[in-house]
């Protein structure tokens, strides 16, 4: 029920993230309610009564300590269970890198996002690269690799609906991957304080069906071989004005 607060989930690994969140919320939620319930019950049951005397329970013998140590053993067991369940999910999202259908380079800067597509030749740094500001356009059902860097300070690429967050660090290229299941427009938020306009550093993840995406590619990507004579910088200026 509390997971109803989460925004819609549109990535393939999103359900895994949600499942570990759900497990933790149920486990620690139960422990929390039990502990607070005990606290409340003790406070009500053992309030001072005229002529009453408290029990002398210093908790030094193992027999008494068992009342604390047994719940602690249960906590340890639950902790281990959570770690064991979380490990493969972390590995799936952050350590594995499935072969991508599309690789895009992201450079974050004060205060915007610059996405570079490799163009028809599939290579970065060639004349047919396509640079898009603000908008990242990708198809559904395909693995996208995003290589995240920064031109100035630390930023963070965050799309709540993807359940994905990764800091962009100047001097590093950090790869992440995702696969979207549902077409639509999702907001990209900067999630690391990056200056006075940090709050307004918004990008848009445009997710198209594979057919629509092919159409977008044929409309906007430089034609294969058409890059000759045309400088990369002119491609950049023409593309950055396009909304996509």
């Amino acid at each position: 029920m509390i997971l109803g607060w989460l925004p819609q989930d549109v990535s393939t690994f999103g359900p895994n993230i949600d499942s570990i969140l759900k497990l933790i919320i149920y486990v620690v939620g139960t422990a929390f309610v039990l502990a607070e319930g005990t606290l409340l019950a003790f406070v009500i049951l053992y309030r001072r009564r005229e002529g009453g005397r408290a029990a002398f329970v210093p908790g030094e013998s193992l027999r008494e300590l068992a009342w604390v140590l047994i719940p602690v053993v249960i906590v340890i067991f639950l902790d281990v269970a959570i770690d064991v369940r979380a490990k493969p999910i972390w590995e799936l999202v952050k350590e594995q890198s499935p072969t991508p259908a599309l690789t895009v380079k992201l450079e974050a800067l004060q205060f915007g996002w610059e996405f570079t597509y490799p163009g028809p030749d599939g290579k970065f740094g060639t004349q047919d690269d396509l640079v898009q500001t603000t908008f990242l356009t990708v198809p559904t059902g395909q693995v996208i690799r995003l290589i995240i860097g920064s031109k100035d300070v630390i930023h963070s690429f965050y799309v709540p609906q993807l359940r994905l967050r990764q800091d962009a660090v100047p001097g590093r290229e950090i790869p992440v991957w995702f696969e979207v299941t549902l077409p639509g427009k999702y907001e990209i938020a900067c999630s690391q304080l990056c200056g006075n306009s940090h709050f307004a550093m918004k990008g848009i993840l445009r997710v198209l069906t594979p057919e629509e995406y092919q159409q977008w590619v044929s409309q906007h990507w430089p034609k294969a071989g058409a890059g000759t004579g045309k400088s990369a910088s002119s491609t950049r200026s023409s593309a950055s004005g396009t909304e996509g």
Partner: protein
Amino acid sequence: MAETKPEAALSTDTHEQMGFWRQYLFSVDHKVIGKQYLFLGLFMGFVGVFLSYVFRWQLAWPGTAAPIWGKVTAPQYYELVTMHGTIMVFFVAMPVLLGAFGNFLIPLMVGARDMAFPRLNMASFWTIFVGSVLLLISFFVPGGASHAGWTNYVPLSDASKYLPGNYWGGNLWLIALAIDFASVLMGGINFLTTAIAMRAPGMTIWRMPLLVWQELVASVLFMLSVGPLIAGVVMLLFDRMVGTGFFLPERGADPLLWQHLFWFFGHPEVYVVAMPGLGIVQEILPVFARKPIFGYRMIVWAVIVAGILSFTVWAHHMFVSGMNPALAEPFSVTTIAISIPFAVMLFAMIATLWRGQITFSTPMLFALGALANFLLGGVTGIPLGTNASDIYLHDTYFVIAHFHNTLVPTAVIAGFGGIYFWFPKMFGRMMNETLGKVHFIFTWVGFNLVFVPLFLIGLGGGQRRIYMSSVYTYYKPLQPLHVIATIGLLIIIVGQIPFLVNFFLSMFRGVKAPANPWHATTLEWATDSPPPHENFHAIPTVVRGPYEYSVPGMEQDWAPQAAAVEAGAARG
């Protein structure tokens, strides 16, 4: 194990009658210095809360003028959140929990006449005073105080081009912090030396009150963790003012270095604050439940284990920072492991109440409120310390709500409990119970009204440090929760009026306090309220542990630590 020390030989300072300056301002008496820390911490606390009022107004009703302040601009917003965090952690929590309670109570609780190094103690207070003044001055320099966030991540905080005009604010932030650290180091040396070398006869280490233990462990944690960050602060200051490039990526530096230095200190720092706060709760619970603390030795060991583990968890703040993702796995395990000693402490505190005779005096209400919320702060650390779920929750309001539920219960709620509890000892008069209870209800209800909604905002993906949440459509349904949170804060602020009235009126007009108003056992209650110069008429001899309440076969339900003669003399 049973060390008995000749107490007077170690304290060479003489406390002859002195003029106003020596007695109240440049005093070397640990009790006066403790009160000075308390006043400084309270003053800075009200500044810090005022800042949060302004930015929370902006969060609830964006673009409208906050009464007293006016409209909040984006640079102001970042200045306010940066300085709120800096002030509350380094200039409120540390001076109150370590400076005020540590200074005032450690010599009294171990039966010493003063701190081991009284002049160093005075220097420590005036050092943090200078740091506080510099930090406050930074609001008025051109460009205002630092905008770089209380974590001050580089390179944003490094090259001034990234925060235009914020040059002096950023410099003063670093200078004030370095001075603050130096002050706390001086205090820590005193705490350790005093508690190790100046205990009264019979005060073995296993008879020291838990608050003394926790102040000691906190001091050791601080000493062992702050060195790298002081170095980092100086390097960053050189980058900004001299032109070095320790943290500048374009000159080959790795910006993650700062994060490692900051959090290697920053995580133990959480326990530097939390432990004395829990110590206060552990002093108050037995007194008002009339029972021994449950599992005294087990708690001491849990504190020590938590202290050791606290050095192994820092990178859980950096799961998504770009460090090698394989590192997230061991740090997730250590983070989950540190929940175990804290579970021990919390369960022991709850067990202390079992079959007690609980009185709901104001200190007890604050102690119970602190315990209830520290539990919430503890369990909500699990989804953040678990690397997979942190991918989603990192840098959202869930983090804000989590750490406020660990730091506010310990530093603020337990801190208030400590003030009500030891006020009679500090000022020789009792505080008013009715005003105290009103203060508790407003503070505790208000606090939960602020932070329960913030958990939900975080789960909804709502990020922290967003000046105008209307920029994002996913944020819009979460906006009403910000309104509730700000109303909660206003309730807290209104609730501080009865506290201030109570605090200052009671200081001069309160009912005269007896030596031991709560019928408590530890040594500070075996001397006058307030204690005389050099604390004790004669150094007490300690004959038992600190929490002997309702001992079978005894007529009264408390057995003071000091031998009977001494207790009788003090009461007379």
